[in-house]
């Protein structure tokens, strides 16, 4: 056998051995080692090339081509094997990283706003959007703001309807040294807001929403000694009962998230004239009559009226020039109706199961 044929044979043997070993390689590192073994500086192919020097000059290019062919065949085979292995390795890694996606996520403690707060926020926002400014007042009031300025003189029978909590001792409060009490309604804010407004040199229109806590000395299944009211009033030229009805209708429909019917019934409050109790068409039975509305199709929700001229006068507003409407609504009552909460006491028991449920 000539020298050149022997070299050719060597190259063929080397190629078939190499391809076989590549196919068996189980890992990328093993393949890397094989690459060095065959194609490296001191690899098998290089060894074969050393024999080329012994060949006559005209035969060298021939064997050179053979060597190059073998080299690229090996390199291609190595690349292909590497790619196969990479795919396999990724598939294994993916399998190893498989998780149960149905396990619950890592929880974070979830807070919740009290349902009364949610109600207050919603109601205040509706009135804010209608242009009513938010005002507050003290909860410990004097008789002047809670009663007298609201046209409820001391001997007035309406005072008895209020079940007032009085403070143990009189303490001087500004110009008024008189019995102090826990405000029985948010209406005193009417007086305070109007006075402040005038003192600041403004002139009506004035539109105010005043949310807050109020107190009545009454404690049973349907009464809480502390509860929340939202007082709403507007004073301007030519404010009419039609405006009162318009604002009520808009507010109640927005709050209950559906068009509600309203009905005003003549009533009596000392601080409004005319006065009206406001009913809404029962939100549970759509006015057909059910247990909640006692079959009447109507549910009483709040008291309202045109601000009594004596109230306007008590703060120095000309009742001939200006008029106003006012109403006060019970927050707990509306929240109970909207959310279907059956028992007032749930609000003040603060059971976290109730709070979480209502807050979600």
């Amino acid at each position: 056998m000539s020298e050149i044929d022997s070299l050719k044979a060597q190259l063929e043997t080397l190629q078939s051995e190499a391809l076989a070993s590549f196919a068996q390689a189980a890992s990328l590192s093993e393949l890397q080692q094989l690459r060095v073994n065959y194609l490296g500086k001191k690899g098998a192919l290089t060894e074969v090339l050393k024999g080329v020097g012994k060949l006559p000059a005209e035969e060298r290019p021939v064997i050179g081509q053979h060597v190059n062919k073998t080299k690229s065949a090996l390199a291609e085979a190595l690349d292909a094997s590497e790619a196969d292995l990479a795919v396999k390795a990724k598939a294994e890694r993916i399998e190893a990283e498989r998780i149960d996606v149905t396990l619950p996520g890592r929880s974070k403690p979830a807070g919740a706003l009290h349902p009364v707060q949610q109600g207050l926020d919603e109601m205040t926002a509706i009135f804010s959007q209608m242009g009513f400014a938010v005002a507050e007042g003290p909860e410990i009031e004097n008789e002047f703001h809670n009663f007298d300025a609201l046209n409820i003189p001391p001997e007035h029978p309406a005072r008895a309807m209020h079940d007032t909590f009085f403070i143990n001792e009189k303490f001087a409060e500004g110009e008024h040294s008189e019995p102090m009490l826990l405000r029985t309604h948010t209406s005193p804010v009417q007086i305070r807001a109007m006075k402040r407004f005038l003192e600041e040199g403004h002139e009506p229109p004035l539109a105010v929403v005043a949310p807050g806590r109020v107190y009545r000395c009454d404690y049973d299944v349907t009464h809480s000694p502390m509860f929340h009211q939202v007082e709403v009033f507007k004073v301007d030229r030519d404010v009419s009962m039609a405006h009162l009805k318009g604002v009520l209708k808009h507010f109640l429909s927005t709050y209950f998230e559906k068009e509600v019917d309203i009905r005003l019934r003549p009533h009596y409050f000392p601080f409004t004239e005319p006065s009206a109790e406001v009913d809404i068409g029962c939100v549970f039975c759509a006015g057909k009559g059910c247990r909640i509305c006692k079959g009447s199709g109507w549910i009483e929700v709040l008291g309202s009226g045109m601000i009594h001229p004596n109230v306007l006068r008590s703060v120095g507003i000309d009742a001939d020039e200006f008029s106003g409407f006012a109403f006060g609504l019970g927050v707990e009552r509306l929240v109970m109706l909207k959310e279907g909460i059956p028992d007032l006491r749930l609000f003040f028991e603060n059971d976290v199961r109730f709070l979480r449920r209502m807050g979600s």
Partner: protein
Amino acid sequence: MKIPFSWLKEQVALSKTPAEIADDLVRLGHEVEGVEMPRAAVQGVRVGQIRSKQPHPDADKLSLLKVDIGEAEMLDIVCGASNMGEGDKIPVATLGTTLPNGLTIKKGKIRGETSCGMCCSETELGLADESAGLLILPADAPVGAEVGEYLGLEEAVFDLSITPNRGDCMNVRGIARDLAADAGLPLADVISHVAEVETAIPAAKVTVTAEGDCPVYMARRIEGVTLADSPAWMQTGLILAGMRPVNGIVDVLNYVMLDFGQPMHAFDADRLNGDICIRSAQAGEDFAALDGRELKLHAGDLVVCDETDVIALAGIMGSEPSGVTDTTTNIVLESAFFRPARVSETRRTYAMVSEASMRFERGVDPLMVETAMQKASALITELFGGAVGEITVCGDAAAINAGRSVSCSVARISSRLGIDIPESVDAVLERMAFGIRRDGDRLDVDVPPFRHDVTIPEDISEEYARVIGFDAIPEILPALATTAPAKVDRSIHDAVADGFLQVVTYAFISDGEQRLFVEDDGLDIALQNPISDAMSVMRRSAWPGLLNVAKHNLNRQQSGVALAEQGRLYVKTENGHDENNVLAWLMSGDVGQDEWHAQTRKADFFDLKAAVESWLAKRGLIGRFIADDSIAGLQAGQSAKIMVGRAEAGRIGKVDGDIADSFDIDAPVFVADINLDLLPEGKKAKFQPLPEFPGVERDLVFLFDKNSSSDAILNAVRSAGGKLLTETRIFDRYAGKGVPEGKVSLGIRFALQDPNRTLTQQDSDAAMQSIIAAMDKKFGAVLRG
């Protein structure tokens, strides 16, 4: 008050059904709390007569009755009442009858004796809320008749809630007047029987010295009365109207009051000592009221007196010794007008309520004072015999509320109601008994004396509006004013966002709870009339309320709570009082719950501190937590005041173990609060360019004394680190094996950054050396190898 339909129809010829009338009443402003149909409720209850009454052999309080209900056999009935005797006629619920209270009558044995029916009281028949014993029927009641039919209960009774301004509607005629005006029907004339005066009977002698409080007083003697039960028709009326028959005279007076609204009183003339005087009481005068109470009167109370005693608290209640009894033969009738405010004040002083006072304090019809006197005297003499003397009249009833007129503009009524006012307004108001004089837009409205409530033009517009109905007023949304949007208080919302549940607790707590966290400095605000001791003083800390909520929930299978409340705290000040807006937190027990990836742990100080810090950060504020062992109710060593800016704005700490025990809470409890009124305005974050050059992070670990303050260490680090130091924090804290006793190892991480260039090794080494030197100098801290 209760108004029987049949009685209304005596005053006005109504042709509508009770349901329609109820709707009209609501529209007119008289709230209808219910329409009762009494007849339907007592089907099967019959008139029975007691033929014999024996004591029950085995029970002192029971009787064995044989009752005749007009059938062949007498009924054996065991009865627990005691006010009946042989011969009395009583309502008997026969077997199978279901009473209004839901009880169905069955044959049964009571203590071994057979009972075949039940004798009934007013309460059991659904006619009254309270009753004392059986309803004894008039002697002429036909035995065996249906009681409902006999009593004329076959009808509707309107249960009305009369508003305090409409004293004129606290009687049948007043309601009838509203309905008549509404329907355009005539109101029946007052049929006044007038008893003929017997001149031999002396006129009652009366003087009034308190004319201001008693502008009109009428009195009349009636002699020779033979007292008997009032007739069945009257008793029925009274029962349907919710009043219990008492005796003939009282029944007549109550009947007249329900009919006309004029309360009257009868004295036993033979139990009076001399002439009658109406005057102001002197302080300390004794009064033995009809309800059994012995009062010491106040100066200024209006009283009716004879020459020795106070015989009535005017308009409220008569005295026991001067009252009519079963043996009374001569009486003095009183009919008067007392000043409403006077009656109201006195009634409230003694916490007394009577049918009379309710009417007087709302104002009665002055022109009814004499009419009622005439009608009552006529009824009494017709029913019980006797003869009447002259009526003694003090004062002029016609002068009360006389000539009142309200002048108003039709245009103004229109503007206030938001509707056009047609010419027919005149007719509507005239039907309501107002007199109308019109001059173009001007309306002069003469107000009848019984309408004490109508004084201003707005009252006139209400009168008109309630007759046409508030439904006739359109719904108009006024033009929206634009106001600066209010700054919304997000305090509680931000606490909730950090995982806290908002609670709402009462503003009043017990005195004991107040003392847990607030020293007694005399600045508490206590209630005069608390619901209970547990709700008697205005809170000065929100923590007791939160502890009560924690207790409630931890006792109900909750393993941990995180609560927050926003509300006010109340304290006396030199000039009055303060109401401070406060946000308070409480954490106790497990943080979260056991989950597949992590176990729960108990909340500690730093859980709550994180919440407070996070809350402050949201408003651009940083709190400094300064250890303070003197905070009442918190455990020394785990409590701090929270400084924000210069304000001591809050406190935080672990609730004293004994206090937690007293709320039955085993786990450590942590609380905090922030006085929102003291918080300074926070800084709003401003834009800063992001760093262009890389920064470096370095860690250093030192040994410090165990009681060193982290806050002081970090402050020292910041001032030593120089301008390049952008961030520093404690990343590790360790005490124990490998750390000397009394020392603690703190790992501090620094971030260094120069906005203008890449940092060099020298830069960071210089900063490190400066910090190491400062730690050594200030704290004697050494680097841990």
